[in-house]
């Protein structure tokens, strides 16, 4: 039934000029609703089918698959046979290395919010003024965000070598005592990483905040100014609260990004050095212990743990903080 219907629909839409009956039904919506229900369903299926198939197949299904493979010791070839139950998960949760990466990821999440958030808000408030070249400024501070993490990592690892340009520049301007082993020193490496992350993502945060600020009507600030509020009072009591939704969405994106941090660490430190330098993350742990070790069962179990960690964090954040902005958009659908 649906096949013949499909043929007519395709035939009709190809014709371009619909037949008289079709035009009549289109003009009055009520009969179209009755006659066109099958056609409506078909259109929905045709238009949304490909996206849903590819999305479910390559985004949702792998996660389900990971849960299955996570119960096996498996090299990644053929059908897994060596069922080990919860042993992989037990190993992960008792592995001191994994505790380390959880700690690092946690620190990266918190430090990203603390370092970038206030800085981005301050910069956006400053730049949200009538100044010349504002669009140029916006473009230039966005450049680090556009460059791939591989290139950022390659460039910064050369800059931050003990014999690199950063130490050299510090010597030149008389701050030689600040020169350090930025990448290998466990007391510094995480801070170097945070510096690089801030450098790469602050432009994105500022642009987002600026976009948020520009949607606030000018009249609000002007009215407050007429009532005698100072510049900073306007920023603090009018702009900042109205920027709230933007800040909360930015924080969400930042948290998810911090939890999946991989490229930068992998490029700059590699797995071995990243554990001793204290910059390893869940993702580098997964790649190292799964792919590099050829133990895909274990790697999949790590993926499941990462997935659950992200899910819990995302849902908690959404429940507690984003709810009033998105009205449940992520979990409850379109409002």
């Amino acid at each position: 039934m649906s096949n013949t219907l499909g043929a007519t629909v395709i035939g009709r839409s190809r014709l371009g000029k619909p037949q008289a009956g079709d035009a009549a039904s289109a003009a009055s919506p009520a009969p179209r609703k009755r006659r066109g229900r099958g056609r409506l369903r078909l259109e929905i299926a045709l238009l949304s089918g490909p996206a849903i198939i590819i999305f479910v197949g390559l985004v949702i299904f792998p996660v389900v698959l990971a849960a299955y493979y996570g119960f096996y010791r498996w090299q990644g070839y053929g059908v897994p046979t060596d069922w080990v139950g919860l042993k992989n998960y037990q190993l992960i949760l008792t592995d001191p290395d994994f505790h380390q990466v959880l700690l690092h990821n946690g620190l990266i999440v918190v430090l990203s919010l603390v370092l970038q958030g206030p800085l981005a808000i301050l910069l956006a408030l400053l730049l949200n003024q009538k100044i010349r070249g504002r669009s140029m400024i916006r473009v230039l501070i966005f450049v680090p965000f556009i460059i791939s993490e591989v290139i950022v990592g390659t460039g910064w690892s050369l800059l931050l070598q003990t014999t690199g340009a950063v130490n050299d520049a510090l010597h030149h301007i008389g701050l030689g005592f600040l020169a350090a082993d930025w990448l290998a020193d466990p007391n510094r490496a995480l801070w170097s990483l945070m510096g690089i992350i801030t450098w790469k993502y602050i432009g994105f945060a500022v642009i987002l905040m600026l976009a948020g600020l520009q949607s606030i009507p000018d009249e609000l600030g002007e009215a407050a100014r007429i009532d005698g509020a100072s510049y900073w009072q306007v920023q603090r009591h009018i702009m900042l609260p109205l920027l709230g939704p933007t800040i909360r969405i930015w924080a969400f994106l930042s948290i998810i990004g911090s939890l999946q941090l991989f490229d930068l660490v992998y490029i700059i430190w590699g797995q071995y050095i990243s554990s001793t330098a204290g910059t390893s993350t869940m993702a580098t742990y997964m790649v190292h212990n799964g792919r590099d070790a050829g133990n895909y069962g274990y790697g999949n179990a790590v993926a499941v743990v990462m997935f659950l960690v992200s899910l819990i964090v995302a849902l908690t954040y959404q429940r507690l903080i984003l709810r009033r902005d998105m009205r449940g958009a992520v979990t409850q659908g379109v409002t």
Partner: protein
Amino acid sequence: MSATTASARLAPARSARRRDKPQKWGNPFVYLVALLLISGSLAPVVYIVLGGFRTNSQITTSPAGLPNPWVSSHYIDVLNSVTFWGEFGNSTIVATVSTIGVVLLGVMVSYVIARYDFKLKGAMYSLFAAGLMFPLVIAITPLYIVIKDLGLVDNLLGVAIPQIAFGLPTTVIILVPFLRAIPKDIEEAAAIDGASRLGFFFRMAVPLSLPGVVTVAILAFIGSWNNFVLPLYVLNSQANYTLPLGVQQFASQYSTDTARVLAFTSLSMLPALLFFAVFQRRIVGGLTGAVKG
């Protein structure tokens, strides 16, 4: 709420602002901060580009210095190498296929979510919105298994197709408000003129939401151009490497030849930067829409 109305509102606001009194006390300070911010953002990029024009001995004796004299041989070497152009070609193919795929599938499904009325509409939106929470890196190990089962390992499509899937959530989130913002009147007028819903989709909805479509396309292209973890898993042979893999490989292969690595690195970031320079207005505008949507 909708991105198009937002950008329409922005234009008059901006011109109204221009008519205000131009100077304020904060101005010099603001310029100073902006200058510091810009130089901080660009310094490492400039270092990479200029480093390619130096010799290794220049870099060793004065790591933070300028090229003196300027040497272009590293850039010429890279531009003459088969490796660079091969990887450049692979990156271009993958990015093009991903972008077309994301835009095509994304527009179609967003149109359904934005303008059709049916029971599962909310669930469909939630499905894609939830995808935002699970980026590629988290799913990469099981995803690799699926790609392997599909026989797409060491195949450029094995990178492009998953990128389409993982690009869909952002696309849907950005496009749905654009498509929903098209007034119902236009659709009714088109229906009276004899356009079917699908005809309306192709002839009216897609052209009218073009700003959103372009934004989505740019994000997909740059995302694909910069992707590292997926090619790292999927592509084994060097002939199939994309540029990020190539940069990593080149950097470890010529780790002592810093200047050459810098030349290779700066040439491989150029396309994404050019792409951004051409379309920057769209990206910033699209982000505005996404935030408000």
